[in-house]
Structure formats: structure tokens, C-alpha cells
């Protein structure tokens, strides 16, 4: 996708080598401000982070020496790291599904052409504009075992109270529900935009064939949305893998480590436990996992579109 610009005819091509140099100069000149930031705050940390992972660097400055891959060896044998990685993956799986499906349902409902479109959009999308901390405050309060609205509703209809954030079997689901409420609006907008881009002719033809709305959805809308769906799923997986905020704010990883995601483990080993080098190593293991997942996604999408 990156090559399209190169094939076009350019006036510069006909000019002399002097203007060639000038092109080089102005090209890099335009790129320079971005490049400076890019190199200093992205490339350098990535490289330096790898170097750190090979040292015993500590927050207090002690233990600076190179220790080879000892941090990696330790991490691979660290049950807490695996547990937190497992939690992250678990969250990614159980959050991605509803975050895509509910978004699709929301968009499909609106796409029927409901009145007062702005109202629906506002209510579905507004939570996306909130900071994670606001969402966590809202939901911690609603999940409150004694005073929370949700348990009040449950007891009202004769169901038992749930300990939500305090029950290791439920806490992750509670996080997923809060996350669904918070971010589904984003996927919803992407779906809605894609649906409204499906040319009307498709539907007109189907209408003439007597296909009802239901069948039109499955035979036209869904297939037309496939590329969008693939992109949304990919983005959602990458977003879910980064889970930290809500968990840190609502359960702090508890109860008993049952919701602690790997980013929190990185944070804790590095800052609470001082071990920046070790924590950098865990970051790289996590990064490796993300690269693998991204490559897998890339291969799958390539195959689909080919």
C-alpha cells in the first residue's frame, strides 16, 4: 500500500541533479521535526528498553550491570508473569466478542433509519469520551456489593447479590461489562460509517427480488461489511491487549491477582518493585506476543483479501 505514490509521474524527474539534491534536502527537511520526535521518543526507547532488559537496572540506580538474558530466563519461569499474560489474553478474548457484536447490533439498528439519530448516537458513543478514571468511578459505585445499583436490581427481581469486583470468578467479567459500556461506541461508529457507505443500489436490487430487511442484512450488509469487521476485530484485539486502566482503578489487579493484566505486572515489577531491567524484559516478551498476533492477523487478512 505504501508504493502508490512512487508510480506517478513527477515533474522533478526531468530536472537536473541539483534539484535532485534539493528534493532530498526538502524531503528530509519536512520530515525532520517528526523524525526528531520519532527517533528520540519512540526509536530510542525501543532500543534502549531492550538494552535495559539485559541489565539489572533498578529504580534506585543500583545494580546497573549487564546480566545477559538472565531477566528473560527469570521471566519465563515466573508464574506471576504467565498468570498476568493469561489474564490479558483472557480479557482480550472475552471482551473482543461483545465489543464487536454489540457494536454491530447498534449500528444495524440505527441503519434501519430510526428517527432522532443524534439521540442514539449520543447515548451509544458518549461513554467513549470519558476518561478511564470516570468510567471506573461510575462502575465501582454501581458494583458496590451493598449500595450498588446493580445488586439492588438483582435483589429486586429475586436474584442473589453478586460480589462483582470482589469475587475472583466474576471480577474479570465485571471489567468486561464496564469496558463494553465505555468503548463499544467507537466500534459502533466505524460500523455505522461503513454501513452508510454501502451503495443503495445493492438494497434496491434485493428489494425488487422481494428480500426482507432481515435477509438483506445477512445477504448484503454483513458481506459488504467484511473488510470493516476484519479491521475492527484487529483493532479491538490490539486495544484489548493493552488493558490496564480500568483494572488498575477498579480492582488493582485483585482479588488475589485474578484480574491483573500484564501491563500492570510490568508497572508493578518496574515501579513498585524497583526492577526496571526485569520489567523491561517482561515488556519485550509482551511486545513479542503482540508482534506475533499482529503478523498472524496480517497473514489472515492478506489471505482473505487475496
Amino acid at each position, binding site marked *: 500500500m505504501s508504493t502508490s505514490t512512487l508510480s506517478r509521474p513527477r515533474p522533478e524527474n526531468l530536472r537536473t541533479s541539483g534539484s535532485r539534491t534539493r528534493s532530498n534536502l526538502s524531503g*528530509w527537511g*519536512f520530515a525532520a521535526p517528526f523524525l526528531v520526535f520519532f527517533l528520540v521518543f519512540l526509536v530510542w*526507547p525501543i532500543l*534502549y528498553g531492550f538494552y535495559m532488559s539485559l541489565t539489572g537496572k533498578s529504580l534506585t540506580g543500583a545494580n546497573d550491570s549487564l546480566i545477559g538474558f538472565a531477566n528473560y530466563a527469570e521471566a519465563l519461569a515466573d508464574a506471576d508473569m504467565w498468570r498476568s499474560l493469561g489474564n490479558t489474553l483472557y480479557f482480550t478474548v472475552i471482551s473482543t466478542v461483545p465489543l464487536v457484536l454489540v457494536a454491530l447490533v447498534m449500528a444495524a439498528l440505527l441503519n434501519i433509519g430510526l428517527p432522532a439519530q443524534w439521540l442514539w448516537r449520543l447515548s451509544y458513543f458518549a461513554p467513549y*469520551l470519558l476518561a478511564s478514571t470516570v468510567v471506573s*468511578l461510575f462502575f465501582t459505585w454501581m458494583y458496590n456489593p451493598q*449500595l450498588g445499583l446493580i445488586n439492588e436490581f438483582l435483589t429486586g427481581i429475586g436474584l442473589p447479590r453478586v460480589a462483582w469486583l470482589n469475587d475472583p470468578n466474576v471480577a474479570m467479567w465485571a471489567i468486561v461489562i464496564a469496558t463494553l459500556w465505555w468503548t463499544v461506541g467507537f466500534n459502533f461508529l466505524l460500523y455505522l460509517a461503513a454501513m*452508510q457507505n454501502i451503495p*443503495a443500489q445493492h438494497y434496491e436490487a434485493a428489494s425488487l427480488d422481494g428480500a426482507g430487511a432481515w435477509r438483506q442484512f445477512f445477504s448484503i450488509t454483513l458481506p459488504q461489511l467484511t473488510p470493516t469487521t476484519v479491521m475492527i476485530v484487529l*483493532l479491538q484485539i490490539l486495544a484489548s491487549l493493552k488493558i490496564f486502566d480500568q483494572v488498575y482503578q477498579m480492582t488493582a489487579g485483585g482479588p488475589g491477582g485474578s484480574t491483573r493484566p500484564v501491563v500492570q505486572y510490568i508497572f508493578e515489577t518496574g515501579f513498585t518493585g524497583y526492577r526496571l531491567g526485569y520489567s523491561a524484559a517482561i515488556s519485550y516478551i509482551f511486545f513479542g506476543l503482540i508482534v506475533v498476533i499482529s503478523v498472524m492477523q496480517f497473514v489472515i487478512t492478506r489471505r482473505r483479501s487475496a
Partner: protein
Amino acid sequence: MATPTLTRPAPRATTANGLKIRQPRKKLTVGRIAAIAVAAFIAVLWLIPFAWATATAFKTETDAAAPDVTWLPPSGFTPEAFVKVFQDGNIPLWTWNSLYTSAAITAITLVISALVAYALSRIDFKGKKVLMTVIIASIIIPPPVLIIPLFYQMLALNLIDTSWAIILPQVIHPAMVFVLKKFFDQIPRELEEAAVMDGASRLRIFTQIILPLSRPILAAVAIFVFIGAWNNFLWPFIATNDGNLLTLPVGLQTIKSAYGIQYAQNMASALLAALPLIVVFLFFQRQIIKGVATTGLAGT
């Protein structure tokens, strides 16, 4: 506001066919009624957290913590919690911190991204392909992976607990460079060629021809970057500890300990923190939705 149609992912989205003029399905069929009912049900579910927070924020602390969970408190509604939160004085400070850091991040991002995107789109220079590839590849780097080295870097630069520590690492948005480049690619070259003949410099062409034509995409990128920066928690949380520098999301995290279990005050603070973007959204709904839809698929 009046016509909140969802405009298509600019810019290449074709002509004006078929966006709202789809089939005349305006009849109130059973299906449509069911759809409205489901949509309304979801909307109510989605509004409940706001409503419950609002109801709580306007209760007295005693009512908020009363074992009888109720929407209508026995002592009536009162703005007491909001008054207390304002007296405490942190929310305005945090809002200001969020505002200027997010504005700085957005401004720097726009400038440096548009410049490099222009070079990638228009200028033929040595190493361009490599640069493009590197920028695209960097899209997959998740920010949380960088927290440890970035923190260490900020330590080394003595920037921890300064606004710069919040701002500087947040201005690199490779995906936005890509979005801008794609937009620039579609601006007809003829527009520039006349200027080139007149001997206009690259920078002049960029500022006087390209940028004015790119307002919608610049707005879209600005919105996306601003919302992201405004709501970012992890990095500002790491980069600052000083109470005077906290941004809204980070500051809000500290109130639980400061107020203890003051439910009404917690909810009042949360609502006040939510307010600015929600208000902005009410006024610029169309632009924001369009902006998010345009930039969203490019990745975050």
C-alpha cells in the same frame, strides 16, 4: 446539530449518492417498532451509569451511603457535593492541566505529522521508501511496552514531574501520518504545479495550498489526538507525581483516598471531569463523529 448525518470517511468517499436517501422504509412496520424498542432499551442501559452518578452526586453523603438504594433520596437533592468538590479546588486545576497538555500535544502532533506526511506524499527524496516503511511498522508498537524505557529516559533528562514529560512522548502518531499522507495523495497535483512555475517554495505551497484544502482531515486528526491525550491515563500517571501537575484522569484517581468513601463527592468529581468533553461533543457532534470515523480505522 440539526442534521447529524454521518458523513462518510472523507476524503475519497465518492459523490453524494445514496447516503440518506435509501429505500423509503419509513412505514411503521412491526420490525421497525421492534428495532426502535431494542435501540431504546440499549440507549437506556447506556444512560443509566450517567443517570445514577448524577442522582448520587446530588444526594447528601448520608443518603448516598444509606442502605436503602433509591433514586429519590429522603432528604431531597442538594448541590452540596459539588460545592465541596469545588471548595477542594483540585478539579479546575486538573482540568486546566489536561487542557494545556492536550492542546500542546495536539498542536505539535498536527504540525510534525502534516509536514512529514507532505514529504511522503509529494517530495521524491532518497530514503523515502525506508522512512515510510519504518513509520508504518511503528504503528504496531503499543505504548505500554515503552513505559519503562520512557520513564528511564525522562529520569535521565530530568523531566519527571514536568509538563514536558507528559507532552513529548505523546506527539508521535504514525497512524495519523499515514491518514494525512493518504489525504494529501488525493489532492490534485495541478493545483501545485502552477505555484511551482511561479517559483513558490515547498513550504509556501504546503502552507498556502495544501493545508487550506486539508482542513477536514486536519480537524479529524486533531479531534482524534485531542480525545486520546485528554483521556490518557497510563503515561501521565507514570510521568507525574506532583499534585500540581496532575491531569484530570490521573487526579481523579487520587480522590478516592482523599475523600474516603464520600460517594456523592466521588460522583460529583467524576461528572465534573466528564463534563468538558461531553459538552464539546454536544456542540460538535457531527465533526467529532466524522473525525473518529475517518481516523478510527487507521489504528490507534
